[in-house]
């Protein structure tokens, strides 16, 4: 019961942290290596709004998410757009931006472990005799809502459909008048906003520290590679695979190898099915 419960909670948490990265890649084929940095930035902006500016928590959250989305959009517009299509440059540029943001935050005062966000739900409840933080249950519930909302957005809104079209076939989408650059900008903004949203849900469990940015990036890459680059469904499935794999490693092997499992999963996936569980991209490229 404990494995099932915490496995589900940890898996949903993992998929939330990776969602922004997956979204950006699926639409614009751009690996946003600044994803972890944006996650921390979003959380820190909310903290500043609440603690330095005295704003209401929910207003601070709105500002934090919006500001992070704008940062993502500016990143794309000012830097990434110029090197779009040059894959190595895209990776280097986004990674460098991420590093600059993280170290800039550290230099600017985000140090120590006392920067925290309040939980949405205090206390705990017992499920099957196991005490669980209400905040973790909140993350679980809200995570499911976010996935559903994203699914509806992509299926029933004009922008969502345009993003989906680009993800499927950029050339055809452009022929139909969909502005690829504009949609890539939107995807960057949306992905960045999602990373901030994930931060707001998850960071109340601990504290806001810059090192979290590196961990979030590693897990996002692991989830995306295993699930299939660009596949949202794949990312969710991969999150569950990694989440449960880590928990089972902890229970039956050793806590020490939790991180190793994610990295090992990347290697195994690349060896057995390089396109990932639900990825099709590599196979098509190979055939062509």
């Amino acid at each position: 019961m404990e494995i099932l419960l915490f496995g589900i909670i940890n898996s949903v948490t993992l998929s939330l942290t990776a969602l922004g990265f997956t979204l950006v890649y699926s639409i614009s084929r751009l690996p946003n290596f600044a994803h972890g940095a944006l996650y921390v930035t979003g959380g820190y902006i909310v903290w500043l709004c609440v603690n330095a500016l005295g704003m209401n928590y929910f207003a601070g959250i709105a500002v934090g998410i919006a500001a992070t989305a704008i940062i993502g959009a500016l990143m794309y517009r000012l830097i990434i757009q110029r090197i779009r299509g040059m894959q190595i440059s895209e990776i280097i540029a986004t990674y460098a931006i991420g590093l600059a943001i993280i170290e800039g935050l550290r230099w600017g005062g985000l140090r120590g472990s006392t920067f925290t966000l309040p939980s949405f739900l205090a206390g705990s409840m017992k499920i099957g005799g196991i005490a669980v933080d209400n905040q973790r249950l909140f993350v679980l519930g809200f995570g499911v809502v976010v996935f559903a909302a994203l699914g509806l957005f992509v299926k029933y809104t004009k922008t969502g459909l345009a993003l989906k079209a680009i993800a499927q076939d950029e050339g055809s989408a452009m022929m139909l008048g969909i502005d690829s650059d504009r949609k890539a900008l939107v995807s960057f903004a949306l992905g960045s906003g999602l990373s901030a949203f994930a931060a707001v849900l998850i960071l109340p469990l601990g504290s806001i520290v810059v090192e979290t940015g590196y961990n979030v990036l590693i897990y996002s890459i692991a989830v995306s590679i295993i699930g299939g680059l660009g596949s949202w469904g794949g990312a969710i499935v991969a999150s569950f695979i990694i989440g449960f794999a880590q928990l089972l490693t902890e229970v039956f092997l050793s806590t020490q190898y939790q991180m190793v499992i994610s990295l090992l999963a990347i290697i195994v996936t690349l060896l057995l099915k390089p396109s990932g569980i639900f990825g099709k991209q590599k196979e098509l490229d190979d055939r062509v």
Partner: protein
Amino acid sequence: MGKGFGKTVWTVLFLALFVVGHSGIAAAAEPPIVIGAPLATAFLYGWDAERGIKLAVEEINAAGGVNVGGKKRPFAVEVIDTRDLEPGVPVSEALLGMEKLILEKKADFIVGGPVRSEAALAAMDLLSKYKKVSILTTGVLTPAYQKKVAGNYDKYKYCFRITSHVGVMANELIAYLGEIKKGHGFNKVYIMVQDVEHARKGGEYMKKLLGDKGWEVVDMKVYPTGTTDYSVGLRDAAQKKTDILFLWMDMPESSILLKQWSTMKLRALPVGFVNAAEQPGFWKATGGKGEYLIVDLVNGGNAPAKITPWTMKFANAYEKRWGLEPEGYGTSSSYMAVYTLKEAIEKAGTIESGAVVAALENVDLMGVYGRIRFDKKSHQVIPSLDPAEGAVTSIVQWQKGKRVQVFPPKTAEGKTLLPPWMK
């Protein structure tokens, strides 16, 4: 009276001004004694030392400076960020920083770091090469440091350490746990450590010592840095009816562990070395769920306490200067290092390294955390559980938002409390 008289008056006035002005300038022109501080300033174990050093320097300068052979000289501090606590930063970066302090910033003495043990051990050769007296005040928990000095005294005699190390800390923790064992009949320990070398080795050493003292160590878990869920380990500890949860972690995620411990109302008292709990902001950061955690602050004075008459004087001065209570474990030791250095320079009458080394070896000063003396062979500060005899530790328990000193007995201001669900 003519031109000649006017010329004479101006000449006399000019000379008078020159003499008066020159003597004033000469009095203020004593060059400062430069303290070089190689520290990982973006981390708690760097900025805690920086603040301690700067506070001491400001106080000493305000009181007139250091008496060096009859002349008063101020201290000046040059801090360099060695980044040696950042993941992936090689030891060579810290050594480059140290060399820059010595060659470019002309540091006369080195106080503070490097902070990582590997970097500090590597820096000893540099200090020997340039004959720079160094007092380590933060980080560097390895006992290998003083062993290296004792093993090759002539080469490493310039190296001193005024902060504790894992060998001393472990024995102090064992002594403290022995008291709790007697008082509450506890017997089972569950060890949870971070997957970094000092924590793993600390955990292994504690496991051995606990076993020797009759404790049953039911398990030891090693967690990778960045772990955000400790539920499995905590449940396991509960099922094994653990009495003590021994922790050794300096990652911020340890606050998540404490929150989960509190949520689960685990019937085990958390004790150990927890970086996140060394800061006054820990209480707010955990929403009060860190209450009852017992944490080793390594050196006394890193939380307000009445260890010696100087301790609260220091704590109040620190709070006035920096806006919060002392934090980390390198604060009081860094502060005392500067005063100890002052004492040694004044006794030696010079800043020449050889003379200062000899003076430091004979220093005997009642400081913030007890009597400050160095072992003459290893240059390690002499520890004790009695502040009248040596440097004491500070083991505190978080009670109602405050860090209350509960060990050693001669300095304790409160008793160890159990959470209500453990009574």
